[in-house]
């Protein structure tokens, strides 16, 4: 590992894409405004100049069309990175992703695979209202044949993309909008990371705080506040929603005996529901309290700031949930 540099999550995403484009001529980026505009969130700024329009392709507003094209190109030997501006817009491509990308290997008896990477922004926090603010990665994590990643750190933003591109199956990467500006240190030669494991971001013994993506910083804040009150929380960053790393999650909760899951999706049919079910199935004898969940309020995310904050998971709610598990 070389000396660390100050960088941002956005820059780490960009470095990952540029690195992939350099390494493998089969890789290309395709999506709305990824070229001349430099990417809706600035992730692909400068890439068109460096790699040219064949490899950085501005697509018209045709999510279904260009996602399906990514599938076809992947079936025929390329390694496309399809960028869908946000998970909200990906609903237009849901047919292609669920009915084609996820099924083709199994449905064709193993003859064709879809080694496609789809990157999408997700989540809320910028007062963009309901049609730009939802966290729908759980819908994709539901589907066999897909893999779903949620990088929440600079290392993961930098390192997950290459591993995903090497995967012979479709991988969806969700980048939370509030993480793009996150700053921190990253080794200059930081490279590929595993995409099938969760990570313990803070070891602890009193309760397991299980979370992913944009909720990680809030959970770390909550853990710090809990520590000041004498409660030692262990923070588990899921990193991958499909497959879920059962071993790490269960090991943590078997030790701490309490769990609170923090998930920016709505609790109904969410990732937190799935993790909770697995804890009940596999760690019941270790649990000392019911599993708690802190999720978004069951409302479309509203525009005014105070309402948006009230709708999303916040550190106070996490603290309250932890205290409930302690009785």
């Amino acid at each position, binding site marked *: 590992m070389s000396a660390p540099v100050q960088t941002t999550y956005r820059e780490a995403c960009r470095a990952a894409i540029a690195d992939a484009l350099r390494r493998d001529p089969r890789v290309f980026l395709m999506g709305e405004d990824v070229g001349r505009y430099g990417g809706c969130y600035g992730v692909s700024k400068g890439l068109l100049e460096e790699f040219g329009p064949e490899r950085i392709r501005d697509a018209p507003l045709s999510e279904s069309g260009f996602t399906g094209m990514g599938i076809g190109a992947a079936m025929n030997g390329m390694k496309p990175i399809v960028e869908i501006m946000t998970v909200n817009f990906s609903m237009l491509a849901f047919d292609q992703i669920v009915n084609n990308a996820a099924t083709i290997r199994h449905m064709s008896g193993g003859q064709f695979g879809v080694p496609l990477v789809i990157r999408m922004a997700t989540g809320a926090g910028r007062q963009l209202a309901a049609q730009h603010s939802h966290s729908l990665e759980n819908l994709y994590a539901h589907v066999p044949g897909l893999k779903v990643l949620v990088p929440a750190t600079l290392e993961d933003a930098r390192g997950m993309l290459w591993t995903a591109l090497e995967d012979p199956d479709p991988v969806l990467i969700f980048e939370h909008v509030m993480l793009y500006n996150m700053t921190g240190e990253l080794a200059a030669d930081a490279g590929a990371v595993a995409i099938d494991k969760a990570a313990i971001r803070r070891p602890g013994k009193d309760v397991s705080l299980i979370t992913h993506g944009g909720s990680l910083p809030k959970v770390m804040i909550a853990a710090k506040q809990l520590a000041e009150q004498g409660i030692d929380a262990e923070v588990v960053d899921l990193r991958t929603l499909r497959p879920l790393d059962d071993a790490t999650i*269960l090991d943590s909760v078997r030790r701490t005996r309490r769990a609170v899951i923090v998930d920016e999706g709505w609790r109904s049919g969410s990732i937190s529901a799935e993790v909770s079910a697995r804890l009940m199935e*596999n760690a*019941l004898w270790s649990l000392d309290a019911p599993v708690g969940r802190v999720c978004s309020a069951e409302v479309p995310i509203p525009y005014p700031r105070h309402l948006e904050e009230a709708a999303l998971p916040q550190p106070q709610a996490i603290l309250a949930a932890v205290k409930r598990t302690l009785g």
Partner: protein
Amino acid sequence: MYEFRMPSLGADMEAGTLVEWLKHPGDRVARGDIVAVVETDKGAIEIEIFVAGTMGKQVVALGAKVPVGTTLALIEGVAEERRPPAPRAAAAPRAFEAPAVPPSAVAAPAPGLRVSPAARKLARERGIDLATIKGSGPDGSIVLHDVERVGGAPARRGLDLNRMRQAIAAAMARSKREIPHYYLATDIDMSKALDWLQTTNAGRTPGNRLLPAVLTLKAVAHAARKYPAFNGTFDPASGFTAASGVHIGVAIAVRGGGLASPAVHDCDQQSLDDLMGRLRDLVARTREGRLRSSEMSDATLTVSSLGERGVETLYGIIYPPQVAIVGFGRVASRPVAVDGQVVVRNVMSATLAGDHRVTDGHLGSLFLREIDARLQEPDKL
């Protein structure tokens, strides 16, 4: 003979109604001919035949709704049909190790015991040490049923009266719920026993004197030996198990409202002096909360006595999994009939509560009469 059957015309078609024959018996049919009309949920559909021959007997009446595959008509003169080959067995399955569903055997053994939340709660209420329970639930876990079965009010170090009360309450409630009690009572003339005691104690220092309790205890022990059906444990799954030893639980009141019944081991084999010593020791340790777990769990029969400040008769509640409890009232002067005359004697009421799944009134009365008989010969106890 070729059987023309109701065809399947769609994934969701289960039956069809024959509404019209377009070919009739005797008509030649060729492959591809439309021969009938079938009414289905979606509407009327013409059905074709796939063989050449002559229409024979039409076996289904018009208007009949029949399942897909039902023979509609017989076709004559059809060339012999080859039997289709049977499917062969698949080759060795492709190498595949991973489980199809998320493994629920990502099971490291839980640190410590596996106890269901419900069981844990009940054990806490009853003051039961989970380490003493064998689990019968999934993964060998301790479940509610396992805790409910545990008998006896446990003593905790340092004697937690509240927990003790709760444990007694739970045990007694269960006893009344599960054990069909029958009750017998008899009056025992204690004159001889008390006279013997007086004589025996006359030459002893107070610390060595025997109490009536020790006589009754020994008498019960002898009776238990003679009638083993009152000395043992009952389990609904396996029935009654006679105990090899006679370990009588002696109910001892604890100041503050608690009650414990530690076992005196091998009562029938001990001398009265030894028994006395054991009783004194037990009472002392009980009141201090220093009982051993074997004392708590080994009783095969319980004796309860109200003592001098009690009332005439004590009807007990059996401590599960035991099958009997003997109760003694206070010794009191009462008029009795002896040889046709009314005299005043020291009389003590003795009761038996028995588990009717194991014994009945007949045996119970023999048991009680044995106790009586033994107490009439105190020197032989």
